[in-house]
């Protein structure tokens, strides 16, 4: 735990402090009853507490006071540990909420009255539909839609991104978020949320875990845990009768110890912490899930509909190749192409230099100082350099260079036209390079697939997720990129309606569909998809329709979110299995201990060779308690997730948490027994 806290700031001092306080506050039975498994432990605790004070109240022997007292303490600690787990998870969420809350200062808003006059009011008094004016260096008082004006807005408070973004009326950049600041110009904003319901408020309450509702799967799992608790309650109560009939006297505290050991306290104590931590992990990626259900649904995603530009590719056209015309050496073309781009700060220019370097250009960067750079203009449609000797080197659009060379009396090589059309038909952009009136060749610029995506799509395919790319490009271009990125399908010349149709089609086949989007015209599709991730830079219509919002507006993040969703479910399943598998060892500790006095032969079942009946029972109970804090790190960080085939993953997790769940307690209980035996001997047990 020490190590982890350094690495990921697993627990800070503040969280620790509030968690300790929280774990005591949560002892309130009215709160505990929400977690039936731990509530049963608490009832057991009260009974043993009474037994410690009045050992004979249920007919047990009088000399059991010390034993009852120890059981009471362990039960109390068990409950505290479970509460602590939940508090830590909440604490981590709260810490994030605090930073958000800081931005939620009470700002004043300039309300625009119907008659055109302005009135200063507190931001908290703003209602939906009010129109406000926000000027330079003022904070936008609430979520809204820009209806007039254009301004740059600093959204770093929400997104952490320091570069200001442009917001303007109409189009896809018209939505603004409360708590962000206008850094230049002014905006007229129509407020779209009532006080307390703004996006920021929602975010705060979500990360705090205050408005956390149990997700469908959590409810189902809870039912399983409750029914196990009921079954073991039946087992323990009837065991008392059977033992009585067989002449075995079992102290009530031992029965309670057996019950607490058998009911799934481990998962019962950690379940809500796992849920909160899952949401928290999503938040850490700067994605706000508007419901836990959405995160859970992520785990089930079968199909992802991704936009090409921004998600799969950078959207910028980058150099991919140099193609010389006939009679020209490729090296020469590369050298001149690099030379034209050395001082070119555009992404295209930079990419030419980079590609040139990887292809072994002889051009030094220092050359840039010896030449005069000619910038690109919309009129010339080309850029380049003039050497000291007056030689002019240019790169630019095909038509522009053609004219330029013709004017200088040069010839157009016969194969140039073909190279250019080939590149265009693949969806690339050709940049022609010429030195004076000689055309050297073409730089092939193309939309580049983001690095690492190919492997990721491959991994997704392995876990059964199909990816579909949407693009406005023509089919040929789309096919090229699709092949390069390794997506499973694409929709070319895609209109927003096509997206909805595709989603409906996939859903009709029983698939769970995820998609990202930002524009208003994406809103219906976002709403239709099972998981809709809207970009924070998008319109508020899109954000309303989606069930998650990415504050960084990075569409690739959907991939991470899906993995987090899966991780959440895996953590839940693994710890449940672990918790249930633990029962085998606990039975072997407690059952022989209970009966050994009357049936000495029962010692055969004491396969752990625990020293005394008391130490056996207490060791099992102690193990049951300390396994909870031991598993808190796993609950918080989630079980390690690596995409692999379902069978392999099942085998692996079953091996670790199923088989491990059977073996670990045997070892743990034995070790605890070795430690506690001398201590108990001192107490006379």
């Amino acid at each position, binding site marked *: 735990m020490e190590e982890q806290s350094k690495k990921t700031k697993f627990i800070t001092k503040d969280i620790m402090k509030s968690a300790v306080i929280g774990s005591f506050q949560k002892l309130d039975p009215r709160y505990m009853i929400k977690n039936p498994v731990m509530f049963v432990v608490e009832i057991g605790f009260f009974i043993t507490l009474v037994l410690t004070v009045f050992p004979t109240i249920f007919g047990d022997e009088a000399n059991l006071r010390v034993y009852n007292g120890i059981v009471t303490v362990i039960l109390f600690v068990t409950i505290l540990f479970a509460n602590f787990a939940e508090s830590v998870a909440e604490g981590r969420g709260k810490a994030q909420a605090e930073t958000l809350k800081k931005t939620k200062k009470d700002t004043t808003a300039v309300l625009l009255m119907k008659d055109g006059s302005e009135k200063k009011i507190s931001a908290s008094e703003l209602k939906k539909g009010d129109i406000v004016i926000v000027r330079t260096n003022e904070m936008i008082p609430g979520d809204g839609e820009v209806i007039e004006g254009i301004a740059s807005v600093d959204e770093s408070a929400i997104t952490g991104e320091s570069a200001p973004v442009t917001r303007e009326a109409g189009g896809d950049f018209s939505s603004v978020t409360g708590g962000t600041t206008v850094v230049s110009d002014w905006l007229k904003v129509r407020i779209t949320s009532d006080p307390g319901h703004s996006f920021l408020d929602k975010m705060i309450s979500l990360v705090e875990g205050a408005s956390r509702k149990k997700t469908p799967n959590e409810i189902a799992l809870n039912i399983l845990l409750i029914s196990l608790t009921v079954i073991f309650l039946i087992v323990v109560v009837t065991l008392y009768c059977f033992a009585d009939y*067989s002449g075995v006297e079992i102290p009530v505290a031992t029965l309670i110890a057996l019950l607490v050991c058998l009911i799934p306290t481990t998962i019962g104590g950690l379940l809500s912490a796992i849920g909160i931590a899952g949401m928290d992990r999503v938040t850490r990626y700067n994605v706000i899930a508007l419901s836990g259900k959405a995160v859970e649904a992520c785990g089930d995603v079968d199909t992802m509909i991704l936009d090409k530009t921004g998600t799969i590719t950078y959207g910028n056209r980058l150099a991919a190749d140099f193609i010389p015309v006939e009679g020209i050496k490729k090296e020469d073309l590369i050298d001149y192409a690099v030379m034209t781009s050395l001082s070119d700060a555009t992404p295209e220019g930079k990419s030419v230099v980079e590609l040139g370097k990887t292809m072994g250009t002889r051009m030094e960067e220092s050359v840039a100082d010896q030449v005069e750079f000619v910038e690109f203009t919309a009129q010339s449609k080309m850029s380049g350099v003039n050497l000291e000797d007056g030689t002019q080197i240019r790169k630019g659009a095909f038509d522009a260079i053609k004219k330029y060379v013709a004017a200088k009396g040069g010839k157009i090589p016969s194969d140039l036209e073909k190279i250019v059309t080939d590149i265009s038909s693949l969806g690339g952009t050709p940049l022609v390079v010429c030195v004076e009136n000689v055309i050297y060749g073409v730089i092939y610029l193309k939309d580049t697939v983001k690095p690492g995506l190919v492997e990721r799509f491959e991994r997704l395919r392995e876990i059964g997720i199909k990816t579909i790319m949407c693009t406005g490009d023509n089919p040929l271009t789309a096919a090229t990129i699709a092949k390069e990125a390794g997506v499973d399908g694409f929709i070319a010349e895609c209109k927003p309606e096509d997206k909805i149709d595709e989603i409906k089609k996939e859903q009709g086949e029983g698939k769970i569909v995820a998609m990202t989007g930002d524009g208003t015209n994406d809103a219906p599709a976002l709403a239709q998809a099972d998981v809709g991730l809207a970009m924070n830079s998008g319109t508020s219509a899109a954000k309303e329709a989606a069930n998650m919002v990415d504050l960084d507006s990075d569409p690739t993040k959907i991939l991470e979110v899906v993995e987090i969703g899966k991780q959440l479910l895996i953590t839940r399943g693994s710890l449940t299995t672990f918790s249930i598998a633990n029962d085998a060892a606990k039975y072997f500790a407690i059952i022989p201990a209970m009966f050994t006095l009357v*049936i000495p032969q029962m010692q055969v079942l004491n396969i752990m060779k625990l020293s005394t009946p008391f130490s056996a029972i207490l060791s099992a109970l102690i193990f049951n308690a300390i396994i909870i804090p031991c598993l808190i790190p796993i609950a918080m960080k989630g079980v390690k997730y690596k995409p692999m085939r379902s069978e392999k993953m099942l085998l692996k997790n079953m091996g670790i948490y199923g088989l491990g769940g059977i073996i670990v307690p045997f070892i743990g209980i034995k070790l605890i027994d070795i430690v506690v035996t001398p201590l108990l001997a001192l107490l006379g047990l």
Partner: protein
Amino acid sequence: MLQIIITLAIYIALVIPVGNYMYHIATNRKTFADPVFNRIDRMMYKVCRIKGEGMTWKQYAISLLMTNAVMVFAGYFILRVQGILLANPNQIEGMEPTLSFNTIISFMTNTNLQHYAGESGLSYLSQMVVITFMMFTSAATGYAACMAFCRGITGNSKGVGNFYEDVIRITTRILLPFSIVIGILLIWQGVPQTLAGTATVETIEGRLQDIAMGPVAALESIKHLGTNGGGFFGANSSTPFENPTIISNLIELYSMMLLPGACVITFGKMAAERKKEKTGNAVAKIKRNVTCFGSQGRTIFAAMSILFLVGLTVCYLAEKSGNPLLAEAGLDQTVGNMEGKEVRFGVAQSALFTTTTTSFTTGTVNNMHDSLTPLGGMIPMLHMMLNCVFGGKGVGLMNMIMYVILAVFLCGLMIGRTPEYLNKKIEGKEMKLVAIVLIIHPLLILGFSALAVMTGAGQEGITNPGFHGLSQVLYEYASSAANNGSGFEGLADNTYFWNITTGLAMFFGRYIAMIAQLAIAGSFLAKRRVNETVGTLRTDNVLFVFILVFVVYIFAALTFFPALALGPIAEHLVLWMP
């Protein structure tokens, strides 16, 4: 050992074609016997005005309950007044109320727990009209529920089927023809089938002995085929008149194993069918699978087989090792523990019969379970507590599916998906219903057992002191709740207390579970089908078989471990380690 293996090998060969035949009946497909049966069925539909419309699960459950209720009242009435009715050559009087209650619940729920001895407690009319009749209808009810359940969870048709039609088809096409053939085979082996009264003969010693007889063969065949298990005579299939030879023993074994195993195959085929419908053009590929088992069915069959074989091995070894106290006293124990066993069957056939009758929840016995060694007696008890090792009349399959759902729930989460089975999501509603089924069984067994050992009325029935006494009680309620019906005998159980409590255990054990399971089927049916990808949890591979076995042992066996520890396990330890 070899004879056990051969017996089981032949069983596999028999069960596959029967499963195939049942599948055709369950899905209304053509069979070779249609020309005959269609006419009979149509006539019956006409007389009963059955239109054969699909029902919702609720309608199905209500039809099932109402039909059973009518039969219960009619049967109860006959038992009470049997003394003044026909076919009563031995002049047996009407049955006492609580015993009648117990008996009628027992036979309607397919339990066949008998707190009376047939030869002295029932007239021939009761044996035929109540006992044998109910053996048919209760088995048909069980299989009908199972078929509806399979239709629901595999989601092939709109509704879960029509209860009346199902019952008629099962009775005319499976139970009647099969039991006629088996009955004749048994008569060939020497089982009596007569309406004549008890024969009185003079023994070699010159004394007079009454030899009880009656229409035994007819009852015997359906007794096993329908996994009923209630004997014509008190000593059940250990008497020569019910089970005279090794061959008749094998016939009886096979007849009780046949249909529960076939049910699993039927289910597997229906599940495979579901896939075929979906993929359409991939029919050819899947058809290969369909011919034999159906991959989903194969998993369940394999898991059940493992549970069965583990139990059988323990039981056989325990019986084989005999009784150390008798060995000490100088009695040869090389043939194993022969107390309570028939010499003509021996240890192997007895262990096999015992494990089978409790796994397939038939309840017939060819040896006295009370006399089994402690561990040998624990196995039948455990298998009734699990109640899913093949299980009787389709119910075992439904119970196993509950564990499958549980296993799927855990495994599904562990691969990062919300759990799904047969392309349907498992959510809170299903888990609630599964929880009901899982809780009701231990509640009935442990709850009533605790009541019995804590009350004077219950303790009166216990005839053995100490741990074996507790085993007797646990066995009786496990047998009732699992609708098995075999007795650990020895228990003095014909008292108000035992008649009423076991009656209630049988009633709740049967109907609560069955209604909850039909509800699950209904809920599955109403669900949206989800897509299957490589990321979906596979429930048709070897790994899942082992996980399923693991889940059954963890959930069911551990629940009963403390009780068993004080019963048979304690008895065993004390016996072997004095």
